Structures are given as structure tokens and as C-alpha cells.
């Protein structure tokens, strides 16, 4: 539908700006924390670099999820997962009210014993895809793809700017 598409692109502008600001802030935070612990540490070992990679990746996803907000199922699921991870790792975060209803009302699609269908593969890829039926899944996938694409372009432009 053409109208939906135009609305979506207008929406994307807002998402891009919000994501960019959040991501940059979290990057700054990461760099400050890494500088505190010694600047040359990450250059020596590969493991440290991997940790930093993961942190940046998580920061990117968290920034994207927060920029989208709780409007979308996948963003809610992503935020939930990130908060769980933060809790497990013992990092102290602000206590936010997480609606646990999403977990409770999850009606897992009955998995047939045959090889995983394409819908199941898609469900694994899209965060929170387990508790969606096909129709909703496709919609969420569309939005998720759009947000991922903006994420990539923003990160890329940041990388370019950093290198200059």
C-alpha cells in the first residue's frame, strides 16, 4: 500500500535521529568506561576486543529498541531480553517496570516434527517472534528490517566520521 509506505518512511526519519543520538551517547559511555580501565588493555588481547565488540553490538540493539519504544512487539521483546541479560550480568540498571504479560501470554506455535519451516526460522531471527502468528510475524519483520537497515546506515556513517 503506497500510503503505508510513505508513512513508514516518514516514521523512519524519526527513528534514525533517535537511534543515532542514543547510540552515540552509549558509545561515549562505553569509551569513557574503557578509558577508565586502561586504554591499551583492549589492544593486547583478542578476548578483550571481543567483549568490546559485543558491548557495542548490544549497545546498538538497545539503542534501537529504545528508539522504537514499546510500540512494537519485537522491540518489547528485545528490551526484555536486554534487561534480563543486564540482570544476569549483575550490572546495575535503573529499575523499570517491565510488563511480564508478554511472557505469560506467549502461546507457542505448535512445532511440527518436520524440518523447521520458514516461518519458524523467521521467528528465531526476529526478537520475540515465538509468540506471534504468521500474520503479525510478517508485519513485525517488515518493521524490524526497516529498523535494522537504519541501524546499519547510522553505524556506518558514524564509523566513517570516526575515521576521518
Amino acid at each position, binding site marked *: *500500500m503506497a500510503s*503505508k*509506505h510513505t508513512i513508514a518512511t516518514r516514521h523512519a526519519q524519526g527513528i534514525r535521529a533517535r537511534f543515532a543520538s542514543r547510540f552515540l551517547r552509549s*558509545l561515549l559511555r562505553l*569509551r569513557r568506561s574503557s578509558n577508565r580501565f586502561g586504554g591499551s588493555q*583492549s*589492544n593486547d588481547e*583478542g578476548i578483550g*576486543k*571481543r567483549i*568490546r*565488540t*559485543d558491548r*557495542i*553490538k548490544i549497545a*546498538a*540493539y538497545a539503542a534501537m529498541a529504545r528508539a522504537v519504544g514499546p510500540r512494537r512487539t519485537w522491540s518489547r521483546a528485545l528490551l526484555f531480553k536486554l534487561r534480563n541479560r543486564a540482570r544476569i550480568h549483575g550490572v546495575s540498571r535503573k529499575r523499570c517496570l517491565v510488563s511480564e504479560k508478554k511472557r505469560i501470554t506467549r502461546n507457542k506455535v505448535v512445532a511440527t516434527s518436520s524440518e523447521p519451516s*520458514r*516461518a519458524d*526460522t*523467521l521467528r528465531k*531471527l*526476529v526478537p520475540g517472534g515465538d509468540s506471534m502468528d*504468521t*500474520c503479525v510475524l*510478517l*508485519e513485525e*519483520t*517488515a518493521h*524490524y*528490517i*526497516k529498523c*535494522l*537497515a537504519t*541501524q*546499519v*546506515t547510522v*553505524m*556506518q*556513517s*558514524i*564509523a*566513517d566520521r*570516526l*575515521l*576521518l
Partner: protein
Amino acid sequence: MRPCSREMQGMNSLLNPSSQIPLQDLQNQQIQNSHFDPNLSSNEDFLEQMLSSCSWADPKSPWDLNPPTNLPFPTNNSSSSAKHRDLFNETPSSNSDSNNVGFRNNFDESVILASKLRQHQISCGNGAAASDAAKMMLPQQLLMAVARGGLSLNDDIDGSLSQGGDGSIQGLFNGFGAGSMSGTDGASNQSMQQHFNHPQGGAMQSPNLGAQGAPATTAVMNQPQASGSNGGSPAQPRQRVRARRGQATDPHSIAERLRRERIAERMKALQELVPNANKTDKASMLDEIIDYVKFLQLQVKVLSMSRLGGAAAVAPLVADMSSEAGGDCIQANDNGGSLARTTNGNQTASTNDNSLTVTEHQVAKMMEEDMGTAMQYLQGKGLCLMPISLATAISTATCHNRTSGIINSHAPMHQSNGEGPTSPSMSVLTVQSMTMGNGGGDGVAKDAASVSKP
């Protein structure tokens, strides 16, 4: 359409103070005044009769006679309307909330009116089909007005039906047309109700069922001429409407159809987002979507690797991308050996062979442990990793041009020179192993990577 607007105004003035009594009275009066002039020949006269019998000209009387009651409307009906009501209540509705129920009650009344009108039509005798059709139009416009008036009765329903109101009225209209056109058997009353339930139930979900009602009407109107039951829903004791060709009026199949349409809609929207979306097959389209999502997630991962070191002069972005893409396939085919072989094959000119081979071994060793460090090591030397196909293409190109040819095939891709402008002989070629934002060129990444230095 003039009579219709007149009636609507009348109805609105009557019915605005939200009570269902005027309609009730209307119906009661219609029941009482069932003696219509059978010698009607023109539409206007018929309308006049309707209006006079319903005594709409006198707005005060309904309210004086009957104090406002909050009783639900069905309790005051005659038996025939009770029958209709039962049909309504038995109809499964997927979005059954209070709005629906109120909506159905309003339609109850208008449907009863419709049935009365239809009976009148039958009693009038069947004239020419054209005049009958013309006569049908008016009562249906009447009913539209009634429906609209009925809709305005409940304010809370109005809001919910603001979108679907017109579509549902259309469905009403078409339903009535279909019902009245489909034969004169006594059970066709109920058939009209049934047929009309479905557009109504569907209209709850999407307004375009009204549009579907129109072809249904035409299909049903063709039935007397076609003299066959289309689509074969057999005559059941509940008098189902004859299905139109190739479709069923079963609520389940309607829901199925809606679901399929929604899925098709979403697939079309996805097609615009995903590149290489020229696949018509749903399955291959899904595969494409899955691959694209995986690709984007991989890009995010790669880009997050490039943030290491911050504002360093190296281009880890380039190296890491190629490493991410090519690293897997390098590791897939026998790590260090193939790399050494390919690099040996691709060296065009080298000032210092020894250092290069040392570098290669070093890089091969580092690649086994961590691609990122390997790539940074290469970058520090002013080298980069690229797919073989690209290397061959570039080497042929740079044969003619020995000065530093920096190829920038993609705008966001940044070129970087490890040594800076001090060594023009060494050219660092940027690699686009995975296109960033282009979506194409994935095949490039699949080749084995090579190190080249012109």
C-alpha cells in the same frame, strides 16, 4: 436520492435524542398498517404510502404515547422479529464485543423493516423486473436511512463504526438487494438475514466487504437467469444463502480468506523492503527475507567490530568486513594453506619478497586465532584483504596506472592509506566484500580472499 435525504433528515430529527422508540413505533405501526395500496405504479406513490403509514410527519406522537423505556428492543417485537433475532444471535462473530451487539440490535430493527417491505413487495405482485428493481431501490434507500438513523441511536457505536459505517451500510444495502432479488420463497426472508449477517459480520473487520457484497449481489441477481446454484452450498434446514461462484459464505472460510489476504498484503509490503524481491513465489520470498535479516544482523555485528580503537587512522571497518565475510569461507577451506597459495598467485610485483612471505605467514597464523587482529596487522602494513575476483580486476586496472589508484566504489566506504601520502607507490585498495546498504554483491564475499600489493 431526494426522498432518501428527506427521510434521513426526518429520521435524524426523530432519533437524535438517543432512544430506540421511534423505530419501534415505526415497526409497530407498520405491523398495524399492513394494508398497502397494491395498485402502485410509481415509486413516489409507494414512498408516500410508506411515509404516511409510518406517520413520520408527526414527530411528537411516538414520544407522547410511549414513555422512554430502557428495555432492550427485542422484547417488544412480534414473533417474526424474534425469529430474526435468533438468527442474529446465532451468527458467530469474531469480534464480539458490546459494540457488535448494539450494532446488531439496530440492524435487527432495520432488517425487520426490510422483511416487511419485502413481504409487501411480494403481495404487490410481481410486475416487470425493471419496475421491481426500481421499487426495490427505494425501500432499500429507506432502509439505508433507517440504518443510518439506527446507527445514530447509540453514540458509542457511532465512534467505532465511523470507519466501517459506510461499508456496513453498503453491505446492508447489497444484502437487501440480494435478499429481495433471490426468489420469493417464504424462507428467503431468513436467507436475506443470513446473507446480510455475513456482510455485516465482515464489515466489522474490514469495510471492503461492502465492496464484496456488490459482486455478491450481481452474482445472486444472475441466479434466476442462470438457474443453478453457484458454488454449491446445499439447501440446509437453516437456509444458507447460495454461495457465489468459487466462494463460500461460511464464516470460517471468510475468516480464512481474510487471513490470507492480510498475509498477502504484508508480503507485498515486505517485498518493497527487501532487495531482489522479484520472486513471485511466497516460499522463495520468505527465504529471501530470512537471508536479508541474517545479512543485516551480520552487518551490525561487523560494524560493531569496527568501533575498536576509536579515532585511529586504520580502517578496521574495511578489513573487518572482509574478514567477517571472507573469514568464514577461508576457514571453511583449509586455513593457512589456501591463503598462502592464493597470495602467491596474486602477487604482481613485490619489492621485497621475503618480507611479504613473512607477513603472509604472520597473517595466516593470526587469522587462525582472531580475524580482527589479523586485519589490523595488515592495515598497519598498508595492506588489505580482498576477494580474488576483485583483486584480479584491480590488478589489471592498476597495471596501466602505477600511481596510487584508490578505488571507491561505494560512497560510504572510506578509503584509507596506512602510510599516508608519503608512499604513493603503495596503494591501498578498499574492498567491498559486503555492500553496505546496497544489498547486492553478496557473491563477491564468497570468493577466497587474497592479499595483494601492487
